[in-house]
Each structure stands twice: as structure tokens, then as C-alpha cells.
């Protein structure tokens, strides 16, 4: 009914957090360079904000396509009150909220869990090339 609003809210929070973290990482890299650090190394190093943007992209992508699906099924309308259930009385609203709490939260949890697994795997992959190169040179 409006389950996509839960991952949508998460998407807003994650995007804001990713932008703040990116700014913090850029400032930190600049300070390091000013203190005599390697500028090339500082700019090449990708921080955690990049990985947080993966989650934001996953969430936004899913939310956009799910919003279209809800529009298709007439659960969302392009005029006020936007959610069909909101104009159908308190029973429909409570059903909508129940679906948001069950399906919506599960959606957010599944996407976040898959992202966490991706981050863990990406750290393992980032370490792998050195090992492969070392083995090849032997």
C-alpha cells in the first residue's frame, strides 16, 4: 500500500549521512596533505562514504521503481492526499501502517543486510589483488 515509504525514509537519512561523511573525509585528506602527507595517496583512497552511497543508490533505485508499481496499482495517486488509503478511512489507514511496519521494514532490512554483505566482500576483494600479484611473481 505504501511500504516503499520506509526504505524511502532510510534513503533520505543514508544520503544525508553519506554526504556529511564525504565532506568529513575530504577535510581529513586535506589536513593530511597540509601536514606533509602524500597528496596522490590521500586522493586515491576511497573512504567509507563511497560505500554508504552504494546503500543510498540501492534504496533510491528500489524506491523509484516501487513507487511506479504503487502508481500502477492505484495505491498512490499524483494528487492530494497521494496515498489512496488515506482517503478510504481509518481502517484502510491502519492496514497501510501495518503493511509499512511489516513489509516496509523487511524491505529496508533486506536491502541493508545485502549492502552490509557487499561491503564485507568488497573489503576482501580489495585485499585480494596484492595476494594474487604476489603469487604470480613467485
Amino acid at each position: 500500500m505504501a511500504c516503499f515509504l520506509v526504505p524511502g525514509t532510510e534513503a533520505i537519512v543514508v544520503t544525508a549521512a553519506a554526504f556529511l561523511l564525504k565532506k568529513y573525509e575530504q577535510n581529513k585528506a586535506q589536513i593530511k596533505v597540509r601536514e606533509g602527507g602524500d597528496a596522490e595517496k590521500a586522493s586515491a583512497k576511497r573512504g567509507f562514504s563511497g560505500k554508504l552511497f552504494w546503500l543510498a543508490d540501492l534504496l533510491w533505485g528500489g524506491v523509484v521503481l516501487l513507487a511506479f508499481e504503487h502508481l500502477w496499482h492505484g495505491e498512490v495517486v499524483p494528487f492530494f492526499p497521494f496515498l489512496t488509503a488515506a482517503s478510504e478511512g481509518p481502517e484502510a489507514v491502519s492496514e497501510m501502517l501495518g503493511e509499512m511496519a511489516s513489509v516496509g521494514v523487511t524491505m529496508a532490512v533486506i536491502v541493508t543486510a545485502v549492502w552490509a554483505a557487499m561491503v564485507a566482500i568488497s573489503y576482501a576483494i580489495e585485499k585480494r589483488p596484492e595476494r594474487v600479484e604476489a603469487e604470480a611473481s613467485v
Partner: protein
Amino acid sequence: MTLLITVFAAVITTAVWYKKSDEKMLLGPLCWMFWGASLMWLADAVFEYAELGAQYFSPAPSDMLNDAFLGLSVVALALVIWIVILLIKDPKGVVRARLRKK
């Protein structure tokens, strides 16, 4: 059916992204869109399966047709969003070059 079509789109897009590994085609946003929607519809499918049981796998032909139509429309919408992003960001400078020529 919608989930199935979106998963196929996600796998094909990711395979193309991996093969080409050309960041100038901006295939990343398309991959994220399809995977994000696939995961969310997977959650939806789990709840539907819990409610309907084995009946979930034998939908009525009219429902299947409608879902397939929706799935294809979703893929079309994602492709339109991707092409708009590609033309606006214009990483290869094709649009900019064309506009300057005129």
C-alpha cells in the same frame, strides 16, 4: 513475474557492466536501480508466499499477464531514467560537442 523480470534485468545489466567496465556509460545507476527494486520485491514476495503458500507459484493467467506488463514497464522506466542521467552527465562529451557544433 515483476520480480522475475527485474531480477533478469539486474543480472544482465550487471554482467554488461562487468564485461565493459566502462564508467563512461554510467551503467552503475541502472544496476543499483534494478537490484534495489529486486530486493524490495523479494521482501514483498516472501510476505505473499507466507500468506498464499504454494498457490503463490500458480497465479491466474490474467494476473501473470498484468505482472509481466508491469515488469516490462518498470524496465522501460529504469532505462529511460538511465538514458536521461547519461545525457545530462554526458561523460563522453558527445552532447556538449554536438551543441557546440551548432
